[in-house]
């Protein structure tokens, strides 16, 4: 269980990015952090990664101390691949940094690439891949160290609608298969409603948690057209109408 207790983050110039965030991330859940631009979603994700310390409050990763190398998988808005390395080398990177030999890492690199549907593209450099495929490599890179927590910061925001839908579906399938704990930042109500089984709705700056929803939508192709999905979108929209300044 990952927990945040009264977490606040203030930056040097007195800017309050986050205030009094208390939340639980149960193992195996798919949590969406949903809020308007600038409300501190990325900041909260960086706190969860252990890269940054809260100004006050506590974060627990289910053990004492900070996350170990490889315990956190991180996917950024841009794929941020090494342009000179091919897909396999890019996925190998986290393991190489922890000094694993290529021969011992190779099976996991291939498994990670297969999990995102990129068998056969091991040798392709980023320049030769489409935007959607680059994002798949980036996800494989985050999965390869079998992290306890997968953090994703608007990973599909720069993709076209068709590619985005495909990657959302594949991510959901992957999550069901592996049982990973995912925290997914988005500013799209539709994306949060479609993906998550736990939605944290954040207020404009300073970010607080205004509401937590735990929807339970049908699984499978009918989800995007299901009445439950549309009702959820309306419910989230209504709660933003309450918290956003007119």
């Amino acid at each position, binding site marked *: 269980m990952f927990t945040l207790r009264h977490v606040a983050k203030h930056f040097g110039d007195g800017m309050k990015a986050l205030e009094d965030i208390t939340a639980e991330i149960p193992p195996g859940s798919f949590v969406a952090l949903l809020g308007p631009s600038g409300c501190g979603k990325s900041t909260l994700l*960086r706190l969860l*990664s*252990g*890269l940054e310390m809260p100004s006050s409050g506590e974060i627990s990763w289910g053990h004492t101390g900070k*996350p*170990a*190398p*490889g315990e*956190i998988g*991180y996917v*950024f808005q*841009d794929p*941020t691949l*090494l*342009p*000179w390395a091919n897909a396999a080398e890019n996925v190998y*990177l*986290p393991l*190489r*940094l*922890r000094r694993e030999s290529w021969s011992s890492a190779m099976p996991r690199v291939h498994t990670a690439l297969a999990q995102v549907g990129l068998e056969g593209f091991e040798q*392709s*450099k*980023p*320049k*030769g*891949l489409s935007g959607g495929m680059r994002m798949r490599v980036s996800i494989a*890179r985050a999965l390869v*160290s079998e992290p306890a927590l997968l953090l994703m910061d608007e990973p599909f925001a720069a993709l076209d609608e068709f590619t985005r839908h495909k990657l959302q579906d594949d991510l959901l399938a992957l999550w069901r298969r592996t049982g990973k704990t995912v925290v997914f930042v988005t500013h799209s109500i539709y994306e949060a409603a479609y993906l998550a089984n736990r939605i944290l709705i954040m207020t404009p700056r300073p970010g607080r948690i205004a509401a937590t929803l735990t929807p339970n939508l049908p699984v499978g192709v009918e989800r995007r057209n299901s009445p439950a999905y549309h009702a959820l979108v309306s419910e989230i929209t209504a709660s933003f109408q309450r918290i956003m300044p007119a």
Partner: protein
Amino acid sequence: MSKSVERVAPFLFGLTALALWQGAVWMTHTPSYVVPGPLKILRAFYDSRTALGAGLLSTLAVTGAALLASTILGVFLAVAMAASSFFRAAIQPWAVILQVTPVVAIAPLIIIWVGQPFLALVVCAVVVSFFAILSNTAAGLAATPPELLDLFLLNGATRWQILFQLSLPYALPFFLTGLRLAGTLALVGAVVAEFVAGSGGFASGLAWQIIEASYRLQIPRMFAALLLLGAAGIVIYAVLGVLERVVLTRRDGA
């Protein structure tokens, strides 16, 4: 216009200009110590080929050595400045001062201090050229995407891993641009230093060919040396440009 016509167009233009030049010199009976015609210059090339060739080689040797030294010095300083903000603050103003001081002004001092003439020329050319490599490499090191830095830190990367597997490879395109600029700058620095050294009695390089030809009023030979210098500059720039393209397409190409 078709591609092949476009290819030959510059040469056609050049040849026409040369023909007009030669014709004008003939018709106006301009003496060759004022403006020599292209044929006279060609003749001077042939007559002084040994001296010109030796001069070119000597200038290129200084340029090459300076480029190598500038690369080592520039990259080393850029890495040190990226690693330590104290070092950056300490070094930056001095690097800029060295950069804005005209090399002609400090060349006599360098020649006296260094003593060994070849080395003195190299030092002058380094003074002119290393800043291009330093500033471009420093910009490249600063251009490392912060997300990748985070990714490296999340996986427990050491400073050396960050330097050699992330920052330096990311700076490579910037470094290569700096190298291309530094190539022509080193040539300019070498020739300026040769001029200063030549007037102090150390005769070497293309600069000396120009000085000597002017003492003897051999204007065609002067033109020949100048043309050689220009051609050397263009070739250095072109070769380093090709190197840049080849290295980057081989590395990042699909």
